[in-house]
């Protein structure tokens, strides 16, 4: 069981770690923490958590190749896109009549998808591809039992 400080709570210690204490409070707490083992431990733990989170994210994101990232994002921004999905996007562009049709299709596909025996509970194994437009999205999902299922949904 860890010791507990009788003077300061987690809120103050958090504010100290975040440099959110006012000058007076800061002076008082800074002196206190020198002598209070319980508070020092919490400060260490909070800083440890901060550093661990930062370091884990940094490690994970460092593995993304910067050159590949840049080429890909430049191609996307300066319109050097794969043609096939652009065609699909065009087809899904927000025309009023399509909106109604899309809603119908979503309902249809969703019902079909969830009614199939054995599908519930298995879950898709991968999202093969997806296309988003302002009003609708298409997701091509691969499941264990079916080859591909397309789910459409819309934002109204």
């Amino acid at each position: 069981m860890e010791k507990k400080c009788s003077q300061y709570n987690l809120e103050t210690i958090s504010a100290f770690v975040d440099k959110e204490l006012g000058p007076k409070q800061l002076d008082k707490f800074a002196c206190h923490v020198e002598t209070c083992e319980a508070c020092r431990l919490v400060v260490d733990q909070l800083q440890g958590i901060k550093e661990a989170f930062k370091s884990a994210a940094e490690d994970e994101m460092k593995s993304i190749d910067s050159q590949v990232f840049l080429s890909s994002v430049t191609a996307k921004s300066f319109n050097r896109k794969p043609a096939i999905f652009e065609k699909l996007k065009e087809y899904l562009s927000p025309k009023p009549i399509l909106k109604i049709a899309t809603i119908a299709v979503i309902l249809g596909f969703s019902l079909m998808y969830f009614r199939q025996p054995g599908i519930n509970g298995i879950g898709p194994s991968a999202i093969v591809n997806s296309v988003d437009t302002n009003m609708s999205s298409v997701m091509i999902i691969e499941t264990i039992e079916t080859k591909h299922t397309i789910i459409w949904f819309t934002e109204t």
Partner: protein
Amino acid sequence: MNNSAVHRDNIEEAELVERLKRGQEWAFAILVKKYRMQLLKIAYGITLDREESCEIVQDVFVSVHKNIKNFRQEASLKGWLRKITVNHSLNWKRKFKRRFRWSHTPLEQEDEKMQYTVQKEKKNPETAYQGKEFEKFVMGRIKKLPEKVRVVFVLNTFEGLSYDEIAQSLGIKKGTVKSRLHTARKSLLESIRS
């Protein structure tokens, strides 16, 4: 790298924005180079998904390229990019897809494995809350935090924003920022205290 390249890297933000508005590709490359890592970390902190974060940040830059004309020079470019990244990370369509992906990726056999015990006798107290083992444990716990709590924690931890800045950036009250941070920390601290 030659001198002119160095000069280009150091170009002032205002000039960078100006050049982005003119659609110059090399200015765009500088923008990406300058902010890529920072935005990736924000996206990863929220989504905890590597591929997803990469896609999100690519979309952020694409959207910046498209909308740079609407950017007001007096606003901060960094703040603008941060805001777009947070919004993209919280987008419901993305969350929907992420849930599918997560549902298929077995979460590590968490609870049994995720008992972090500080071996006080063996470990120096100064290094007890460091290292890969601790990092893995913390990440497992962070994944369990509600997303709205995690977003606040991300902006606090990665961006070092003040409570006021977080409140402003997310459009919530300062009190809410404090209470969400408190929730995050209380839960994380409880989990490391065996």
